[in-house]
């Protein structure tokens, strides 16, 4: 890293490693660095939200239902109905009212309780939802949940794909055939159908979504890593490691894995983007995040009926948060891929 940042290398310095070379290429990519900044801001926000510093009270109903955003101004007071309020003094009905003797008793009893009139805000910075919850807090909390689900599911899928790919590529033979068969089985069922089949038996919840996406999404990573491990298993450095007595596990994970880890990292970030989008769809369809949690998907699901009433702010906020994060993350992924694997540049 220090050698790379020095700009020009002394003649006897070791050539820069793959990571420092990649870091240098990434730093030269202005779009990539800007996106890295945006993603870092989001990660800070997520950390703050997860530790309860911000958006802890997203479930509190702080404003009037569907309060508009501050810049749009409070909702105009509804015109009173056709009935005119009666004028003049109140008529005394106590001689015909059968409940009249008990009014005094009830007033005394009511006085024993203290009623607090909750001040509900007329506007919020980004408006409120149908129940009067702050859309901004919901969006922050939703970011935490959506990104967490996407990242965890991607980690799980990448771990499964890497492990199976390493086994199949390194050992081949019977084990390779068996894993290839498993891969064929999983890829012969369209992805969304596989997700539904898993969702039908696993039930609902954040952990379940992570599990379902992870268990169904490993095939792409497996395919790539299998090819990489096949290629590397016969290279000289791996044979040399074998000659000095390194075990198979050590050759696979201590020698080969660091050399293909850039492929893993790129796959991880590609999967994260895909899984964040998948979580939104699944939550909308009612198969994802449960109703007592909030994610971008549940926000968009609520926003559909709100939009018909002209309440556009929840839809806009959720879309904006998601668009900014996913765009930054996708462009960062492209930059990472270009920096780590120049051979793949320009391919989808």
């Amino acid at each position: 890293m220090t050698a790379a940042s020095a700009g020009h290398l002394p003649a006897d310095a070791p050539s820069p490693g793959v990571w420092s070379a990649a870091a240098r290429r990434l730093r030269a990519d202005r779009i990539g660095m800007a996106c890295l900044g945006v993603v870092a801001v989001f990660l800070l926000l997520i950390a703050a939200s997860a530790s309860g510093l911000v958006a802890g009270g997203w479930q509190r109903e702080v404003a009037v239902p569907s309060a508009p955003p501050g810049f749009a101004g409070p909702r105009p007071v509804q015109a009173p109905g056709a009935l005119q309020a009666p004028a003049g003094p109140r008529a005394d009905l106590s001689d015909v009212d059968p409940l009249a003797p008990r009014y005094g008793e009830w007033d005394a009893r009511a006085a024993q309780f203290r009623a607090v009139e909750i001040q509900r805000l007329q506007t919020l910075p980004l408006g409120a939802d149908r129940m009067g919850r702050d859309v901004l807090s919901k969006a922050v909390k939703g970011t935490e949940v959506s990104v967490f689900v996407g990242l965890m599911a991607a980690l799980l899928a990448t771990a499964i794909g890497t492990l199976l790919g390493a086994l199949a590529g390194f050992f081949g033979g019977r084990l390779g055939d068996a894993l290839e068969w498993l891969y064929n089985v999983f890829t012969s069922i369209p992805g969304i159908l596989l997700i539904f089949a898993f969702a039908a038996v696993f039930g609902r919840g954040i952990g379940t979504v992570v599990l379902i996406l992870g268990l169904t999404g490993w095939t792409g990573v497996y395919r790539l890593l299998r090819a990489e491990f096949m290629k590397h298993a016969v290279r000289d450095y791996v044979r040399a490691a074998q000659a000095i007595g390194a075990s198979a596990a050590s050759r696979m994970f201590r020698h080969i894995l660091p050399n293909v880890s850039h492929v893993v990292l790129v796959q991880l970030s590609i999967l994260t983007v895909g899984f964040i989008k998948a979580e939104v769809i699944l939550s909308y369809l009612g198969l994802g995040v449960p109703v007592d949690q909030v994610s971008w998907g549940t926000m968009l699901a609520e926003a559909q009926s709100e939009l018909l009433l002209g309440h556009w702010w929840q839809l806009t906020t959720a879309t904006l948060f998601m668009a900014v994060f996913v765009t930054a993350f996708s462009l960062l992924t492209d930059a990472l891929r270009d920096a780590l694997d120049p051979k793949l540049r320009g391919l989808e």
Partner: protein
Amino acid sequence: MAAYLLRRLWQMVPTLAGVVLLVFVLFKAFGGDPAEILGGLNATPQQIESIRQQLGLDRPWWVQLWIFVQQIASFDWGRSWATGEPVAQLFASRLPATLTVMLPILLLDTLLALPLALAVAAWRGSLTDRLVMVATTVALSISFLVYIIVGQYLFAFQLGWFPVQGWSDSLWTNLTVYAPLPVLLAVLVGLAPQTRLYRSFFLDEIGQDYVRTARAKGLAEPVVLLRHVLRNALIPILTNIGLALPSIFVGSFLIEVFFSIPGLGREVLLAVNRSDYPVIQAVTVYVALLTMAVNLLVDLLYMWADPRVELK
């Protein structure tokens, strides 16, 4: 040719067996007890016991697996647990609606994206490329969900150009009245990534030597692109269409739910929410079978697209 076909069909057997096994194990090991789902909350232990006997759930697992295989082979999945409708009839009545929406989407997507991609590839410049790439990424980062929420609100609710949702019994009414909005939205969203993908296929070919030779011998640029580049890019294009083909039978769940289209996708989603296992199992196994058949078909088409491809 016949020998090739036979061998390919033979190779499908283990994969299909795997799919059957996966579905069986998944529902057996992790799914709830079918007898309790079927019996409902008020079922007596005797009722549950009798359901268990009817379904063969009291038999050993290999007998149950055999019953499952028999169901698949005979296309007889019994009745849906939720509605009592025979599963086969359920498919037959829902599939037309799905195809009415999905076939136009696939056709329009491909027919619009191919010329667009060819045009973009022929007219490339590094700044335009970069802009198109960034614009596509931004457009893609917005969920498909947002596009259909806003599209339905704008075109159907506000402007009134299309009905908000609905479906009829007549194919013509469906195609001209109810299908256009969902098809339009899906094509609008799908076009950008498709164009980007096809563009990369064309760019791979444009850099080849034979293109330079064709230009050097004085062929007009349209001829070079249409007769040489397009023909050679057909293989990845066919692969891509082959990948998309099986999903037209399950449809787009989102579109069907959103526009109340009584298709297979909405039915599967309902089945998932109602724990209607026979429907989910049947769809999964048959769509897997269909996917394998499509893959074989695509491999055969390779030979038509590129005579150099040998089937072995």
